[in-house]
């Protein structure tokens, strides 16, 4: 584990990508400004204190991943045909992994995207499902904060149980691109929902969900917060999916369900984009964790498995595959570190850097985890090792916040 006096930033010479390695950018100065900016500012306001806090987060996340996630990875992945790991989610909640970016007024840690990325990377090295749960909840928190819905968020943040704290969100779709929207009659203080939302992540496990809705009076979409136990909410069975099995999603049908309007009518796209600017870096951190886990498993195996009378690590074709994996990971680390620093410091074009980091690193993760199976051969394709799961999770993660090629087009549009 990371000792308190160890450097927080991993250098390129540390290429084993073991569980002690983690990208923790040094704390940077941030500007005063919006709520997220103020949250990020904590790292800048107190450099030494920020670094110390980040290291402690990294240590806690690493220990948690190794002790709570790694031993039961295959069992937890059986969901929905096996039990849901609610106890693990509760423990993560108690360690404040869901509170990282919330301000202190909302019982949060008031840390920036660097801290969230540190935790996500460590967790996703072992099991990305919990990473997906954290990502979804934090993304929903960000939308609520962007929309100025602090009172609603306050009520959620007062919860002492993970289930009541989690917030569902269709986090794999950008509702501005693919308009999967429920219908809402919008009124101050309350709205009524109808229609269907597909692939609502945590829709079956969280107490509430943030629903993108179309209202009669606005061209753009809006958001509404709905209690998932409300009358008029019907949830499907958990959806069988490619990866992140224990970060389940459901299809939700609304039929006159009462919900709380969030922010201004028709401004959902704005809130989503603001959230996505920051959360792309967090998504990239998940991918870096998957890559590191895949590389570590591949390297360990290559040292033990023999072919033609020699360990396969010593056959140059295998060594080349591992080298390509390591090179991609090392680059991904650097890109992520820069993106997190920029996002926390809100340097010019930090939004573009965050998005570019995610697009590049997610592609790398798909390549690296594909090779990660290949090094193990048939064994890598079996459920007994983590490689096949990392492969599925990496591809799944690539779809966070929307269709990957469409995200590239959007990136270009932003530059024009």
């Amino acid at each position: 584990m990371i000792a308190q006096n160890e450097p927080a930033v991993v250098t390129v010479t540390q290429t084993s990508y073991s569980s002690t390695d983690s990208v923790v950018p040094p704390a940077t100065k941030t500007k005063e400004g919006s709520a997220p900016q103020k949250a990020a500012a904590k790292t800048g306001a107190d450099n030494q204190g920020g670094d110390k806090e980040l290291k402690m987060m990294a240590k806690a996340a690493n220990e948690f991943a190794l002790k709570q996630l790694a031993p039961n990875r295959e069992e937890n992945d059986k969901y929905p045909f096996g039990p849901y790991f609610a106890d693990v989610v509760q423990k993560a909640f108690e360690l404040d992994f869901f509170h990282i970016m919330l301000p202190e007024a909302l019982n949060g840690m008031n840390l920036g995207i660097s801290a969230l990325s540190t935790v996500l990377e460590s967790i996703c090295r072992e099991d990305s499902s919990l990473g997906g749960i954290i990502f979804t909840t934090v993304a929903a928190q960000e939308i609520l904060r962007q929309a100025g819905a602090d009172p609603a968020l306050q009520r959620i943040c007062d919860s002492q149980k993970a289930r009541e704290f989690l917030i569902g969100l269709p986090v794999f779709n950008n509702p501005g691109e693919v308009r999967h929207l429920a219908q809402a009659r919008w009124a101050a203080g309350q709205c009524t929902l109808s229609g269907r939302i597909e692939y609502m992540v945590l829709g079956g496990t969280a107490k509430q969900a943030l629903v993108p809705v179309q209202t009669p009076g606005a061209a753009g979409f809006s958001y509404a917060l709905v209690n998932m136990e409300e009358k008029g909410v019907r949830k499907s069975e958990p959806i069988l999916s490619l990866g992140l099995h224990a970060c389940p999603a459901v299809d939700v049908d609304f039929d006159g369900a009462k919900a709380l309007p969030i922010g201004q009518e028709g401004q959902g796209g704005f809130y989503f984009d603001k959230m996505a600017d920051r959360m792309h870096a967090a998504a990239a951190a998940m991918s870096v964790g998957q890559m590191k886990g895949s590389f570590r498993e591949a390297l360990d195996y290559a040292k033990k498995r023999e072919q033609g009378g020699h360990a396969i690590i010593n056959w140059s074709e295998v060594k080349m595959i591992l080298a390509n994996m390591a090179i991609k990971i090392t680059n991904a680390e650097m890109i992520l570190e820069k993106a997190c620093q920029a996002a926390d410091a809100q340097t010019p074009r930090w939004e573009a850097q965050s998005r570019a980091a995610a697009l590049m690193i997610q592609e790398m993760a798909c390549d690296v985890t594909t090779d990660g199976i290949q090094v193990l051969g048939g064994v890598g394709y079996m459920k007994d090792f983590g490689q096949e799961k990392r492969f599925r999770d990496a591809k799944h993660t690539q779809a966070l916040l929307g269709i990957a090629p469409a995200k590239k087009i959007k990136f270009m549009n932003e530059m024009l």
Partner: protein
Amino acid sequence: MITSSEIKTLCAQAPDFDDIACGLNATKKAPKGMVAETRKVVAIARKFKQEVMQPYTLELDRRMQQDPEHLPWEFVQKANQWGFYSMWIPKSFGGQGYNIPSLSYFLEETASECLALANLIGVHYLAITSIFSTWNIGVISRLCGFVREGEKNNKPCLLSTAITEPNAGTDVEECELVDKGNITCIATKVSGGYVINGTKVFISNGHVSQWHIVIAYADARKPSENVVILAVQNGTRGFSFGRKEHKMGVKGCPASELIFKECFVPDDLVLADPEQHRKAKRAAKETGARFLDYTLAASRAGVSAFGTGAARGAYESALAFALKTEVDGKLLVNHEWAQSMLAEMYKNAALARLSYAEANHANGMYGLFSLLQIKPLYYYFKYLPMAIVDKWIVPFMRLPVATWLFQKLYLDGKKPEAFRRIAGWGSLAKFTGTDAGVKNCHMAVELMGQAGLRQDHKVEKMLRDAKLLQIYEGTNQLNRLNLFKCIAAGQHPQVKVFEYE
């Protein structure tokens, strides 16, 4: 302008014209009837896909995720009823005698719907190929007879091939590596047969097969010179099934562990052993290499067809999605970037198809089934009534003289160039087709975004399934090296392949 002698000399230069023009050479020799027959096979495959596979694919995958121990007997039964387990067995061995290249088109069609179900049919033919590679006609004829009997009696009789061992995967796929590998499945010669001890793993279709073609070794110190190929039936004393692997994909096709403990196999079920080829005018290692080359050249073309099917299935799913989904206010299919992605996917599938077609042309010219594609023989067997085949041909095939004749033709009579050519094209097709399959599945999931993540939209399953293709039947890394061995090692003496650095 140029003399015939110059043409001969220049065309023999690298790349040898005959290496790069298998299709061109084959076309003029191939019976025209093969085209109509292949067209019929594709139509049958599409009918089967629509009537049997499409309602069943996702249901089976879901069921396998829920209960990994389930075995898809109901599908095997259906495939047997449709006659698919004897369809590509030559008529002279009691099968239906469809031309072998048409099997690849059938596999592409079925794989475009579900790789697991396609494997439940296709893997049986890997075993058929491996028994034919020995040219032990008597044993082959008996085994094929069991398959046909199973079809008549509605009791499916599938064959599996057992090569991979717990500590030797790539090693047992390559003669140059096997002697350094950690080989543990040993067949010891005893009076009247062999006794097998050891374990085979990841054996596709193991649990649903009645016969297992086991590649074992009489001497672990020099496996390459001591290949023993035996047929072991379920229920044989000393043979048992071990675990059924829990895989990421291709879940409907079991990957089985086969355990042999003092398992006696009589001589009449030994397809090949060192003794049978003791008098051959070639090194014992070369005989083992020829078995492998014949088998893998044909089976790898089949795996390429699986990959092509995956690539095509992914393209078709992505296109269907793009035709009905609006992105940024207009149909996805009308975004230029999406059209470009879809075109790229179509191209990947098309080139993959060409690669297996060329490998099949090589096999038809120089490989396992070359005799069957000689026009007079093709038409003779095509129109010969089964009653006559049963009465005269099948009994002849069980005579020792048949084995002598075919081994003379196929093991003694073939030149090294033939093996180099078929093995090279087999490897090229294998990694071309399967890389295309994985690539397209990645692209389809990307294009479909959230919808692509759902099992009920199928492409996520295609991606899980397709990844296996890059691993089995020799990893794609091994196949690249094998291709290089075939195209370069003979021509450049300084080239060393499979040598430890």
